[in-house]
Structure formats: structure tokens, C-alpha cells
């Protein structure tokens, strides 16, 4: 009803302004603030846009370097003399620390380090991990490369949590979705640039250096770590600006607000467990596939390495503009489960096209990109519909934790399946994973429908329900 909406609107506006205690005569009295230029005044939009720029580039380095192995797959396989299952260990080692850190990230930021120090520490881990990774290649020591990926993993996901916390702290309110969308697009931009540029850098280095392959690889990865150093500088600048804003506006340090209580796990409903299964079953058929995609396109479709890398990055390129658009669509229409059903079915279709036909793979990969974005927009908000607010932190932490566990295990499995049985069998395996997600989606719909649940409401129905519950 109109009343409820207006009331909520007012509340929102109140929350979006930073809290300013107006104790007369104190140092923090707003009246005693020196007049500043617009760009240096933390409460103005211009300054916040500057902060937004730094916030977006904070995650750029981490996403750029995450997919370095996929971009340089043939080079790594050749120079380090690996088979595919050892190559996929590079992805598995990134995921292993995050099985546990997903629970600890919020705690570390809120209680132990604080957002500013925490961001800098995680950026250091990202930087250090990438440098160790590159050093391992320079010295031809694969175990060092795996260790580097492990250190990189410790920093990578937690840095994403820190980035989100900064966003909430600076942009709470109506701008938040836009900021999240921008951050995601920057992340995808980082992945895309990585896919398309690293191979070119490698070939230029190879022209300059006449040394054996692993040296060229190491130098290329070191150049890649420059993006991480850039992100570290952004983290330091953000910390400085945040501390300055706190001093000037007397704003509190941002907190994740997550409360993780592992005992809440036993209260998770069947719908939530089905959502977890969908998450695991779906993402293990996307990320390891992209990791192994380059050689697949070279061998099966006779693409050149540059073309293969380009088509591998199309999922990220599409997801950058598609995520906000599809998010808007899902928000307006509701019916999340139906959108998830479309997404999973089209991913299954894409994998079957790649497995059983020689049709132009651009079609299948574009379909994969759209459905990947659609699923992300429909799946993650559903957790909030199923779980009470005080358990939300635990639920998201658990979801990311088993997602990382699944990715770690399936990355290794995918590598060894490829080595022993080839690409067709690998694609059939991915089809089976997506089919598991599909079964879970159908069951989620049925469970929800039979229990009279509210997961698949249209947006208007959900809005009405919200008003009713607010009025009560």
C-alpha cells in the first residue's frame, strides 16, 4: 500500500546519509568543517565517484590473474611439461583455502583487521601469491606455482568480500545495486582482458628472449602481477580515503555485518539444500570448462590459439553487460525458479551442442554466457527468500564454501577425465553435472509449490506479500 512504500522510502533516505552526531562544540561538529573543494569532500557525489573508481579497480587484479592458467593453457602445458590433471591443480589450489575462508572472511574483516587493514592484507596476499606463482614458473618448479595459487586463493575471495563491504559502507541505499553491478562488470572486464592479452604478451616475450619456455612463462606471469600491484595501490589509496572520510564525517568503519554461526546449518530447509546443489552442479560445469576451453577449441574446431582464447572469453564479455540487464529483468518479473530453469536448460543445450555437433561454437558459448549471467541473477537472491535474515551470513558463507569445494574437486576430476578419455567424455560429464542442477531446480519448484512456498512469486505478488508482512 502507498503508506508502507513511503515509509520505507523515508527510512532508506535516512540510512543513506552517513551518521553525523551533532554534538555542539566538538571537533566533529559539521558546522566546524573547513570548506573543501567538491572532489575532496567525502560527502559529495564527485568524491564518491573517485572512490568508486578505486573500488572497482581493487578487484581487477585478482580477477585478471585468476584465469591466467586458462589464458596460457597451451604454454603452461608445454613449458612446464604437464598433463591436464596437473594443470587443473592450479585451479584446485585456488579453491581449497576458500572452502574455510568463506566462513572466516566476514569475521576477519569485522573483528580482527577492520576493513581498511583487511583489504590491504588481502591485496598483499593476492600480490604475493601471483609473484610466487610467476617465480615458480621462472625457476621451473611446479610445486611453487601451486603454492603461489594457494596464497593467491587466500586473498582472492576475501578481497571480494572486502570490496562488497566498502561498497555498502560508501553507497548504501538506492545506488548499491548499481555499484555492485559495476564492480561485477569490472571483474569480468579483468577476466576478458586477461584472456585476450596474456597470449599476445607471451608471444612478444618469446620473441625477445631466446631462453627455454618456462623463463618466458615466468616473465609473462610477472607482467601479469603488475595488475595485482596496481590493485594493491588502489587498496592503500582506498584505505587512506576511507580513514580520511571517517575523520571528516565521523563515519563508522564499514562492517560486513555477517554473523556466521555454524550451528545454524542444521536449520537449513530442504529448499536451501536444493539451492546449494544447483549452485555446485552448475558452476562446476562452467568454470573448469573455461579453464580447459582453449585446447578444446583448438583441437576440435581447428581454431587458432588467438581465436580459441577469444571464444573462451566470450562468457565473461557477455556477462559484463548482461548481468545488470538480466538482473533488472529478474527483479521486475520475479519468478526466479522459472528463470533458473531456463538458464540451466540452455546451459545443458550449450554443452550438448559443443559435445555432439560441429556447429559454430560461438553460438554455444554465447548461449553459455547469457545463461551464466541469468542464473547468477536468479540464484543468489533466492537465498535471501529462503533464509531468515540472521542466518543469511551463514547461508551465503556455506554456499560459497561448498561451491569452492566442488570447484576444487571437479577441477582435478575434469583434468584427469580429459587425460584418459578425451573431450567428448568430459563434455558428457559436464552435461551430467548440469543435469544434476536441472533435477534440483525441478525438485525445488515442486517442493516449493507443494509446500505453498513463496520462491516462485512474480515481483508484484512478492511486493504485495512484503506490504502485508510489513503492515503486520
Amino acid at each position, binding site marked *: 500500500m502507498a503508506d508502507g512504500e513511503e515509509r520505507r522510502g523515508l527510512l532508506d533516505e535516512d540510512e543513506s546519509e552517513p551518521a553525523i552526531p551533532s554534538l555542539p562544540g566538538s571537533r566533529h561538529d559539521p558546522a566546524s568543517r573547513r570548506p573543501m573543494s567538491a572532489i575532496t569532500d567525502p560527502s559529495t557525489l564527485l568524491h564518491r565517484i573517485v572512490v568508486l573508481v578505486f573500488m572497482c579497480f581493487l578487484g581487477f587484479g585478482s580477477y585478471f590473474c585468476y584465469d591466467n592458467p586458462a589464458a596460457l593453457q597451451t604454454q603452461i602445458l*608445454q613449458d612446464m611439461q604437464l598433463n591436464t590433471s596437473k594443470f587443473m591443480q592450479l585451479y584446485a589450489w585456488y579453491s581449497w583455502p576458500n572452502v574455510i575462508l568463506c566462513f572466516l572472511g566476514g569475521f576477519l574483516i569485522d573483528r580482527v583487521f577492520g576493513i581498511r587493514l583487511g583489504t590491504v592484507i588481502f591485496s598483499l596476499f593476492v600480490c604475493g601469491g601471483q609473484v610466487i606463482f610467476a617465480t615458480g614458473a621462472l625457476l621451473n618448479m611446479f610445486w611453487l606455482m601451486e603454492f603461489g595459487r594457494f596464497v593467491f586463493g587466500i586473498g582472492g575471495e576475501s578481497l571480494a568480500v572486502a570490496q562488497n563491504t566498502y561498497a555498502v559502507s560508501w553507497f548504501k541505499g538506492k545506488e548499491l545495486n548499481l555499484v555492485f553491478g559495476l564492480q561485477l562488470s569490472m571483474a569480468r572486464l579483468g577476466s576478458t582482458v586477461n584472456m585476450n592479452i596474456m597470449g599476445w604478451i607471451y608471444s612478444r616475450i618469446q620473441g625477445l628472449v631466446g631462453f627455454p619456455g618456462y623463463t618466458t612463462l615466468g616473465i609473462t606471469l610477472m607482467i601479469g602481477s603488475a595488475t595485482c600491484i596496481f590493485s594493491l595501490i588502489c587498496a592503500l589509496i582506498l584505505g587512506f580515503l576511507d580513514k580520511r572520510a571517517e575523520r571528516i564525517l565521523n563515519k563508522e568503519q564499514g562492517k560486513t555485518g555477517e554473523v556466521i554461526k555454524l550451528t545454524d546449518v542444521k536449520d537449513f530447509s530442504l529448499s536451501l539444500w536444493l539451492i546449494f546443489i544447483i549452485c555446485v552442479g552448475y558452476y562446476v560445469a562452467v568454470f573448469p570448462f573455461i579453464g580447459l576451453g582453449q585446447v578444446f577449441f583448438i583441437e*576440435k574446431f581447428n581454431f587458432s590459439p588467438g581465436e580459441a582464447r577469444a571464444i573462451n572469453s566470450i562468457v565473461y564479455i557477455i556477462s559484463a553487460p548482461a548481468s545488470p540487464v538480466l538482473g533488472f529483468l529478474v527483479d521486475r518479473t520475479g519468478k526466479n525458479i522459472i528463470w533458473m530453469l531456463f538458464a540451466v536448460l540452455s546451459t545443458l543445450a550449450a554443452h550438448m551442442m559443443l559435445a555432439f555437433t560441429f556447429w559454430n561454437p560461438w553460438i554455444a558459448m554465447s548461449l553459455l554466457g547469457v545463461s551464466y549471467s541469468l542464473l547468477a541473477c536468479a540464484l543468489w537472491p533466492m537465498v535471501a527468500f529462503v533464509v531468515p535474515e540472521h542466518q543469511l551470513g551463514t547461508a551465503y558463507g556455506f554456499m560459497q564454501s561448498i561451491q569452492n569445494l566442488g570447484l576444487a574437486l571437479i577441477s582435478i576430476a575434469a583434468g584427469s577425465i580429459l587425460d584418459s578419455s578425451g573431450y567428448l567424455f568430459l563434455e558428457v560429464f559436464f552435461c551430467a553435472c548440469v543435469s544434476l542442477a536441472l533435477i534440483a531446480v*525441478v525438485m525445488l519448484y515442486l517442493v516449493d509449490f507443494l509446500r505453498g512456498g513463496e520462491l516462485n512469486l512474480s515481483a508484484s505478488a512478492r511486493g504485495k506479500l512484503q506490504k502485508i508482512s510489513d503492515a503486520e
Partner: protein
Amino acid sequence: TMAAARLCAVLLPLCASVAAVRGLFRGGTGDYRRQVSMELNPGANGSVGLDLLHVRAVGPGDTLHWVLGSQGPPALLLVHTDSPNSSLTVDWPRLLSRNSSGSLKVEPQSSVRYASALLFRRIWEYDDTNDTADPTHAPPSSFLPPYELDQFSWDDLNRTLNRSSLSAQLCGRPSSSSSASADTFQNGSLCLEFSAFDSWGRSSAWPRLLHSANTSQLRVLIKGVAVRSNHSRLVLELAAVVPRDQPSRVDTLHSIDDEYSPTIFQVCQWVTLSPGSSSAALGFSQWKPVGYRSEKLLTEFATPARHSAPEPRPAPARPSLARAFFGEQLGEGYQVSGLNLTFGIAGEPFYNSTQYLSWTVLVGVGSPPWDSFSVLVLSIMAVALGTPALLLLLGGVCVCVKRKGRAPPQYEPIN
């Protein structure tokens, strides 16, 4: 008879569908079996200085004669007759003389439907200092003197003959009388592993070609050769004896199934077509364009094998198995057509890294066998697609039933 006709009309489609399903699993080669027998040096008295392996595969209405011999360039001879009682006769004195033509005969001669031979002539070695793996554009100076396979001395075939597994291995190295390339083969050898088959199946070593009773398989193994430079790559020169008037060509076909030869999505077939038809094949050689640099079944050891277009080549000069069988026909009704197989691609390790190279070829009559999905793949896809479909169907029914059963709401909420 009416009842019999009706019974046939019912049973035939049933049998056809059963056969089709079985054919789907067995790559269309059917359940054809043959009786296979092997004999070494048929009709010879005592040791004759060279080995001749004769394999006779008898089917219900025809016979396949395989002859593996090392006189001249090692060759595999295939003769297809339409009589289950045909036999091979060898005129040993004539075979061992200078003019051996006509010393190998398949009796009765009128029953011979198709004959061909696959010869292994030379192994070329070139110094790939620029690492391009492209011998067609390599300077002539980078080519080292080739290993002439007709100047090799071969080990005793009797020691490697295995009648239970229907296989034999012909191994050799340059004889002392050949050119200066003899010392590189000190501890190494070129081996031709021959396997005959009595029914369909798949070997265990990659690329695991599907074989049937109409085929036999040859595996070329170049092992332990101390090549003459650190950047050496090898090229295998093959030749086939094909009918002069019937067209033959090498096709490279795409296959979506790489289960048995991971990352290889192509099949090469050198087919001799039957006259007047562009699709029915009389005989073939089939291979996957890949060689392997190690015995271990790992994809990192796969090396691409590219073939050149077949061109007419001169017939082997010295006494050879091909000349022994085809005799004067070798210049008239039949011609020798050769191609080069290049192993390796730019950036790959050279032969010296593992000192091992293997390549497999399947030779047979009729149309080449075509791979199909394994039972495991088909069953996974059936379950992966069937279960959600079933769930969707059941769920849809459930939802419809529930929707119909729900009483329409009597009261609308006031606010």
C-alpha cells in the same frame, strides 16, 4: 505361405532394429566372424633366410589372405577371394631368385576379387633447427640420408609369433651392408606389430582403432634410435599398390568422438573405390592423424601426423613381396602410389626426447569401420537427459492435479 510372409514381415523389422542397435554399439561392423589361422613360410623346407607370414581368415563365403613379408620393403599384402577354399602357394626357389614375379599365387586365381599391398619404404630424418616441423619447406640440406627399409635386416618372426592373440612382430635394423646410417640403430629398432582379428574389437594401445573381422592392424614402432641431431624429426614414407583404373583418395573425416584417442577428432582413410561408384569402397587403409611419443596412455605424448597427397611412385626395384605377387601387373593393371607422413608440430619435443614413436594403421576390405559412442557415454546421456525429463513430466502432472484440486479462494484480502 501367407502366414510365413506375415511372420517375416513382423520379424524382419524386429531383427533389423536389433541388428541396428547392435550395430550402433559395434560401429556398424556387425557380428561377422572369421576363422583365422597363421602359418609361417608356407611350403618351405627348413630355413629360407626370410620370413613370410601368411594369415588366412575364412568367412562364410569368402577368404582374406594376409601376407606379411620382409623381402624388399616390408609389406602387408591383402588378397580377398570369394571362395572359402582358396589357398596361397609360394614358389620358394623363384621367390628367392632375382626375378621373383609370380612366385606368390592365390589359387584359384579366378576367385580373387581384390588385392592390394601396403609398403613401408623409407624413414626420412631432417634436422629441424628452426622448429617449424614443416619438411616441405625445409631446406634440402637439412635432410639427412634416409633409412631405406628394403636394406634392413629383420629378426626371426617365429620368436614373436603368437597364435592365440593372432599377432606377430617384425623387427629390424639397417643391415651392415646399407649406408652409413647403420650405427644410429645400435640399440634401436623399427618394429611392425601385426595383428589379425576374427571379430570386431578394439586394441588397448592408443589410438584404439575399431577393428573387425575384415581388417588387420599394423603398428609401426620406431624405438631407441639414436638420431643424428638433437633437432631431428621423422617422416615415414608409405606406398600402396592400388588398381590403376579405379580411383583412390585419402579422406580426412571429422568425428565427434574422441573417447578412444583423446583430443583427436579426425580419421584419415585411404580408400580404393569400386568402379562406377563414388562411395562404395573396395578396400581401405584407415588411421588417425596422430603418433605417440611414449607407450604411456597420456595425451601429452600425442603428436600430430600429417599426410601428403598420394602420388604415383616408382615400383620397388629390388625383389619385393609386391613384385612377387603382382608380377608384371605392377606396371599395367596396378600402380604404386605413395605418401609421406610427417610427425610433429612446431614447438613440440623432438624425437630425441623420448626416442619412441608409434603410429597405427588399419588395413581391410570393404568400407572402413566407423566409430560410435561407447555404452558408458550413451547410458550417462540417457540418465542425464531422461531423469530430468521424467521429473518434469511427473512434476507437471502433479502441478496440474494440485491446481485443479485447489478450491478457488473465497475471500480476497482486504488490503
